[in-house]
């Protein structure tokens, strides 16, 4: 690369060109010092501005924008932060305790966690600022105190205004639930060891009501024909005849008939899902257990009521003329009293004066003993009526059509009419999760039969016709995962969230 001509100047000669007092800063060194000085001044100025603590300076310290709900404290760090009292769940409490003591500032006089230096102190002691506004209930009575995390363990702020701070990552849940008796790793992993387990509350039907959905959903429900001793299709007129006018107005009308129109009295009865199941549109007014479960209007269904949904087809006649019905929901003792009441009301005698009249009728009046006989006859009549009613109820299985008799040790005083087991149909079937019918029905591709197909199984189509009291008419986990999954689904046009908090809550009212 280089070609040098003959250089006659020696190194010694070259060195003599350099004066001995050459040690002086060059221009470059001076420039370097000036640049360093400028950098220092700028850095000092920035630091001074930060320490001065103006609102805009505080913005420099924030690791990110606050969630929209907290934006009013964007400029006020002290609203949530105490000096040298860490909010992050992974902060080392012992070290900060030393720091707070060094700087002679106490994060909180009543902060036993910081003062004790224990990293495993109850989480609530770190969360006093959060609990100033938020007071959620505990998670579970069986949760270990050492496992209770701080609020910030799951709810991370400074992550943007649109951050869903109330929707923590699944790992916060699976961190503990992976190690439980029924381990759960993620809802997205159906198969495998740590997929979401089947819904426990749907394993067994706790109800004690005999019911056949398939039969009731059939078009044209057969009913006994009292005239011809056979079966005939029930008509709308039959329904209206068995219920009060108020109930009649609430009865579902056959398809195609609007509210304003009167139903065709001769039309066969065809029930729909909504004939018996209506959404509960009430709004919760107080934080109660029911309110927690019914916290959203339309989330769950109203309980099925006999008077509204069953009486039209299943009147509680207690005699062959089918003119008199029992009130529903009575225990055997109350049935007797009801029968007595109806007897005497028909006789236009107050039930409370039976003894009085008897005693009055027992007085001997010369030539007039018929009153005493009348009272005894009436008592016999009453007894016969009651026995007849009980016999009719037992023989015709009026109660037993739907109910199951209880094996009670202490039978009611009424002979031969045992008590029945309580219906015990849960108001909410998914005990551990939240569900909203309205939100699901709002999706066009989801109908009742989407998740309750077993209620509409048709033996004619080869679908098994199982008795309802042995099966839960809710499809369960697999059906949920058709939409709530990470996988694309060709059957449904939607793909819903599948994170834990979509259905579950950590802070649960009345924790189970």
């Amino acid at each position, binding site marked *: *690369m*280089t*070609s*040098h*001509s*003959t*250089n*006659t*100047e*020696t190194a*010694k*000669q*070259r060195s*003599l*060109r*350099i*004066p*001995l*007092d*050459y040690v*002086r800063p*060059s221009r*470059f*060194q001076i*420039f*370097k010092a000036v*640049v*360093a000085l400028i*950098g*220092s001044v*700028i*850095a*000092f100025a*920035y*630091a001074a501005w*930060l320490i001065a603590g103006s609102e805009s300076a505080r*913005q*420099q*310290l*924030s*690791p*990110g924008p606050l969630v929209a709900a907290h934006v009013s404290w964007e400029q006020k*760090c002290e609203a949530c*932060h105490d*000096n*040298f*009292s*860490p*909010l*992050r769940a*992974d*902060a*080392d409490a012992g070290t*900060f305790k030393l*720091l707070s003591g060094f700087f002679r500032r106490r994060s909180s006089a009543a902060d036993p966690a910081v003062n004790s230096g224990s990293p495993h102190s109850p989480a609530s002691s770190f969360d006093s600022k959060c609990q100033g506004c938020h007071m959620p209930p505990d998670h579970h009575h069986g949760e270990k105190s050492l496992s209770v995390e701080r609020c910030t*363990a799951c709810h*991370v702020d400074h992550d943007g205004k649109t951050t869903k701070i109330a929707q923590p*990552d699944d*790992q*916060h849940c699976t961190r503990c639930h992976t190690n439980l008796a029924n381990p759960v790793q993620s809802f997205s992993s159906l198969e495998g060891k740590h997929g979401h387990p089947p819904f426990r509350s749907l394993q067994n039907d706790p109800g004690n009501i005999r019911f056949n959905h398939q039969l009731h959903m059939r078009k044209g429900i057969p009913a006994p024909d009292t005239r011809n001793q056979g079966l005939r299709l029930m008509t709308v007129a039959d329904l209206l005849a068995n219920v009060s006018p108020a109930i009649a107005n609430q009865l579902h009308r056959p398809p195609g008939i609007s509210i304003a129109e009167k139903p065709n009295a001769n039309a066969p009865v065809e029930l729909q899902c909504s004939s018996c199941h209506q959404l509960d549109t009430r709004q919760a007014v107080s934080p109660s257990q029911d309110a927690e479960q019914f916290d959203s209007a339309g989330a769950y269904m109203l309980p099925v009521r006999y008077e509204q949904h069953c009486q039209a087809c299943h009147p509680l006649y207690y005699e062959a003329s089918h003119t008199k019905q029992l009130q529903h929901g009575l225990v055997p003792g109350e049935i007797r009293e009801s029968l007595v009441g109806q007897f005497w009301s028909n006789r236009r005698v107050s039930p409370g004066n039976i003894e009085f009249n008897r005693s009055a009728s027992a007085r001997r009046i010369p030539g007039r003993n018929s009153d005493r006989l009348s009272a005894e006859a009436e008592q016999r009549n009453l007894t016969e009526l009651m026995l007849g009613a009980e016999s009719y109820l037992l023989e015709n299985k009026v109660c037993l059509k739907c109910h199951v008799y209880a094996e009670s040790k202490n039978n009611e005083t009424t002979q031969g009419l045992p008590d029945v087991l309580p219906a015990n149909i849960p108001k909410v079937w998914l005990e551990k999760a939240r569900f909203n019918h309205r939100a699901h029905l709002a999706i066009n591709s989801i109908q009742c039969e989407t998740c309750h197909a077993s209620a509409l199984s048709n033996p004619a189509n080869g679908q098994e016709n199982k008795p309802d009291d042995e099966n839960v008419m809710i499809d369960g986990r697999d059906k949920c995962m058709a939409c709530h999954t990470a996988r694309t689904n060709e059957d449904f046009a939607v793909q819903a969230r599948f994170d834990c908090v979509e259905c579950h809550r950590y802070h649960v009212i009345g924790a189970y």
Partner: protein
Amino acid sequence: MLSGPKSFVALHLRWCLFFLVGTTAAVLWYAAHATGSVRWPGGGSLPGLAFGFIAGVIIFFECALWLRKTPWFRTRRWLGRAQLWMKAHIWLGLLTVPLVLLHSGFQFGGWLSYLLAWIFIVVIASGMLGLAIQNYLPRFMLDHVTTETVASQLDAVARQFLVDADNIVAMTCGDEQSSDILDQIPQTAAAPIAGTREIGARRRIGTQVARSPGGSVLYPQVRQVGELRRMFDTEIRRYLETGRCISGKLGGPRRDEEYFVALRKVVPPDAHTAISALQRLCERRYQLSLQARLQLVLQGWLLIHLPLSIALLILLIVHAYFALRFA
């Protein structure tokens, strides 16, 4: 740190192992602490605090290198050798990279920590660039700048070349300016030997000599050297003065050779000695220019590294205070 590959390994092997062991230990501890947690442990966690503290101490030590080089501490033997300090500066500085990364929890954070992180990155990058330059460029200069001189004296030496060239041309052309030029040369108490001209700097301090040993050269006056004067005034002088040739005919051994070969053809042979001297001066001037450019590269990265290091130190203190206060 001028060293070949083998000597580099010998010098830095232990420090390199220390760096690797330290990094591995930090990563393992951090990984153990992060196991089972949803988020990466942040700066407030136990490993985060430890790494932040260690990195901060190292950064303070890194800045102390400047103090070590000041006249107050430069000759203090009890501080250890400068080479040891430089090796510690390099490897501890590299160690701060994984420590800071783990301390941050792989997040930049707010504006202050964001700025601090980027300053840190630039400081590290400039430092590594400087390390590479400082190891490669001196060897390059040794091969390509054979007449290297003291960097701070480049301008002064170039001016001496100019004076020498003026003197040579004046003597060759027989100009009266030569006496004025001679006046520019610092005079000593000893009178110059008659019939000679002094070339080269005179020693002003220490043992005074009348002239540089062997530095007196006689350039006889030559006739018909107008072309020499013209070319000197238009190109050579400017080149010696500024180090740049507008026409591009000078600057580099090959160009100089071609230029002066052409010049020799247009001047009498008696002037070829002077022309050769001018050529040597031009080559030396090129060497000075090359050295200046290389010196700028060798030291220029400090214009970034040094001020940002100071800013890093200041902002580090601010960050530590506010991060601990509002953890």
